[in-house]
């Protein structure tokens, strides 16, 4: 089984478009086009974003490993982005700051723009300007950007444990985080009720 389409196939663009639309539709249905909901994780009054993404991650992980186990999917054929540790940390920080200032991440800003939110359109505009500037000044930070390439790193390999054991731990951590965030959310909303 698979791949249904190869990377060189002209159909891959169509598939990407269909998956992109489906992804945007689900983001919008989950309420992720609201910057208040997205910022809620930072302020502690709404953890839906964390819960949705964590659930998506464990569902996908369990699904992929079962598919591999039954021989329906060749996991080695899945491309894993190269891990540049320095740029990942710096980029993650910049992304986090941008997220909390703007109230969106790139995907959700496109999604919110599609439903007519003006703040999201401005965010998307800024995002495009940022991409152009990043490209224009790339030679200046190319060295840092490409330094410390750790390849397609896999966390369970680096931790020296089996992937199934890691998955089980990951599921337990996810569920524990759901309980913890529900508790925080309850306390924060109680506090805000007081004022």
């Amino acid at each position, binding site marked *: 089984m698979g791949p249904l389409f*190869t990377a*060189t196939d002209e159909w891959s663009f169509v598939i990407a478009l269909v998956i992109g639309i489906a992804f945007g539709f689900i983001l919008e249905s989950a309420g992720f086009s609201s910057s208040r909901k997205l910022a809620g994780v930072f302020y502690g009054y709404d953890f839906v974003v964390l819960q949705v993404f964590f659930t998506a991650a*464990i*569902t996908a992980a*369990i699904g992929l*490993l*079962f598919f*591999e*186990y039954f*021989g329906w999917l*060749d996991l*080695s*054929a899945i491309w894993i982005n*190269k891990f540049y540790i320095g740029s990942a940390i710096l980029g993650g920080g910049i992304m986090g700051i941008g997220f909390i200032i703007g109230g969106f991440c790139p995907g959700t800003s496109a999604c919110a723009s599609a439903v007519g939110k003006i703040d999201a359109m401005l965010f998307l505009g800024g995002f495009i300007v940022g991409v152009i500037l990043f490209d224009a000044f790339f030679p200046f930070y190319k060295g840092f950007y*490409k330094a410390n*390439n*750790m*390849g*397609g*790193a896999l966390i369970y390999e680096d931790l020296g444990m*089996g992937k*199934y*054991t890691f*998955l*089980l731990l*990951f*599921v*337990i951590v*996810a*569920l524990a985080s*759901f309980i913890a965030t529900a508790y925080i959310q309850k306390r924060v909303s109680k506090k805000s009720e007081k004022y």
Partner: protein
Amino acid sequence: MSDTRIIKKRYIFMAFVFVGLALLLVLLPEKQISKQIKPEKLLQEINDNTRYFSTDDVAAKIIESDLFIQPIDVRTPEEFKKFHLKRAINIPLDSILNKDEKGNFEYANILNQEVKSNVLYSNGTIYSNQAWLLLRRLNFKNNYVMEGGLNKWIETIIRPQKPPVTASQNELDKYSFRKAASMFFGGGSVNVASSESSAPAPIIKKKAMKEEEGGC
């Protein structure tokens, strides 16, 4: 009130499903998953030409000191000693699949790359393609072949031919790059014998090489 209870029950049920499925994967008997590449995929990769790096690309990357490229000479150590590309390492074709005492491939950490791109080369492309095929069969990643091998390297980089006056700008640009590269690698107007500092001079003669390779 009853609503929240139902939701909570659902959540608890889903939590058990997730943990149960993950636990099942841990407890299931281990299954040997073949690490070798699927025949259809190998065939597809043989037929497309994405494995080739042109001599111009290799030259440009060596000149730029791009550390993400690793030239690998698959010829014999004697041939390697006579001439090799700058920064190249020698892993002869006949020892490419050597195993250590534990039964692991001796060169796996070099040849199965996550970080660098290996560019295999020989005098022509027969041996480098054979090496590539052996490595791809084992699903080793990031291995490429230098198109035309050292024969083409000499032809295009060390002794580039001047294009006719009527040639396109593209070709003229390519020629000026090759001329500059030729100076860098010690070919062209510079005495061939006083080649690059790290590598001995390119003393391989084109004709002799073609004979060795069986006309590839």
